[in-house]
């Protein structure tokens, strides 16, 4: 994967881990951009889920404003989950995944690049779209900053943990609901502190503690998740 045939003029090959990471990231982002409809789907789902609550519960500002921090977070969580199934599936089916596992490049870098690409295409747009949902659900203006910060720190963790589920189920024909079953319990800590951060922002309390905890979970995820993802990929491909 460090040698890609592209239309760029030949230049000095970048050596080392940074080069591998950058090459994998470039490839993943390129592929993601080519499947444009897949990018928009999670965002539409995000919007739809947020619409379900006023319809199902109550459109009153008083009630929705109370629920808004948790609702936006749950919607973001579900939208991320929805997009996880296809993370490795295409590569698994055409054999690219097997090649990546056989290559001498460290699997951890390839995996991290894939998850980062996924977050850039899913988690980041969700974070940017979140204020719109906050508006629709009557989230007070003071909460918007906390909403975006908590999602910014939380959604990468969701991508990392979701990728573990995706890697475990990539070899199975029916991935869909199974991934949700495996991954949702693991999402709960992120949800708890993410929505708590928004809640704190709304009531004017300091956010720092919650953001620090979200950051710590992200750090743990960045270090440990790629190991689990790599192991799961090897098992799924060989099984």
């Amino acid at each position, binding site marked *: 994967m460090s040698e890609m045939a592209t239309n760029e003029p030949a230049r000095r090959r970048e050596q080392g881990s940074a080069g591998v990471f950058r090459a994998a990231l470039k490839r993943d982002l390129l592929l993601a951009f080519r499947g444009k409809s897949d990018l928009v789907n999670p965002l539409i789902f995000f919007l739809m889920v947020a619409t379900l609550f006023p319809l199902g519960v109550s459109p009153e500002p008083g009630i929705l404003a109370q629920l808004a921090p948790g609702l936006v977070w749950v919607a973001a969580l579900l939208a991320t989950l929805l997009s996880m199934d296809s993370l490795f599936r295409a590569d698994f089916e055409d054999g690219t995944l097997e090649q990546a596992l056989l290559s001498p490049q460290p699997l951890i870098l390839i995996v991290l690049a894939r998850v980062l690409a996924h977050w850039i295409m899913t988690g980041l747009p969700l974070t940017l779209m979140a204020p719109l949902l906050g508006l629709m659900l009557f989230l007070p203006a003071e909460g918007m900053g906390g909403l975006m910060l908590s999602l910014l720190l939380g959604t990468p963790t969701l991508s990392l943990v979701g990728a*573990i589920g995706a890697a*475990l*189920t990539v*070899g*199975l024909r*029916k991935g869909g609901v*199974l991934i949700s*079953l*495996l991954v*949702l*319990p*693991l999402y*709960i*800590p992120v949800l*708890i*502190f993410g929505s*708590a951060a928004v809640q704190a922002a709304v009531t004017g309390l300091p956010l720092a503690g919650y953001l620090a905890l979200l950051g710590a*979970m992200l750090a*743990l995820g960045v270090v*440990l998740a790629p190991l*689990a993802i790599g*192991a*799961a990929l090897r*098992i*799924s491909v*060989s*099984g």
Partner: protein
Amino acid sequence: MAKNKTDKNWMPRWFYQLASPRWCYDITGKLLPAFSLLALVLLLGGTVWALLFAPADYQQGNSFRIIYIHVPSAILAQSCYMMMALAGAIGLIWKMKVADMVAKACAPLGASLALLALATGAIWGKPTWGSWWVWDARLTSMLILLFLYLGVMALHSAIENDTTAAQSTAVLALVGLVNIPIIKYSVEWWNTLHQPATFTLTEKPAMPVEMWLPLLVMVVGFYCFFAVSLMLRLRHEILRRERRSSWVQALVESR
């Protein structure tokens, strides 16, 4: 399998014997009667003690007696998960079939114990707090533990190949194990309704002797029951996986 004298000869002999499904089947056959008797005596005795002789709580009255089921099942549900993850790790690292089988046997057992803990916790809650369900830290954590168990069972049944299923669920169990402290802390922070734990084996219990002694009996009894059920499941799994081997066929014929 040629024995390599230079590597790993600090491991006791029984560790390598454990790798043989047949040896495990034989030894569990010998251990079962003893453990079954022990479980029966302890559970029966403990139950009689809990229902008839232990004092009722000053505030909660006789519903307090539910603690003698709730606490042991909660302790066991958590121990079982650790055992499942440990067995999975051993199977993953040393490629031991028996470890895989132990992990597989732990999952439904642990799930039913978690369910028991949840049910008794909820039932206990009705006379104590007035409703059949409360979202307090301990019950919510136990519910999430049940979800983790169900996830492992779902993944196991979705994969056809026995080895792949064992390896995948081992990874999942280990990921879950790392997450359990994080989940516990998050849920506890999220809700501080439930009373703090009143029973551990190492710390001085907050309960008087007449209350924690029968509890101890029930905990040990539950551990024995756990061993019995685990061994029964393990034996069935061994027979199923080794059905093509000659010793299993001889066993089938001798019936």
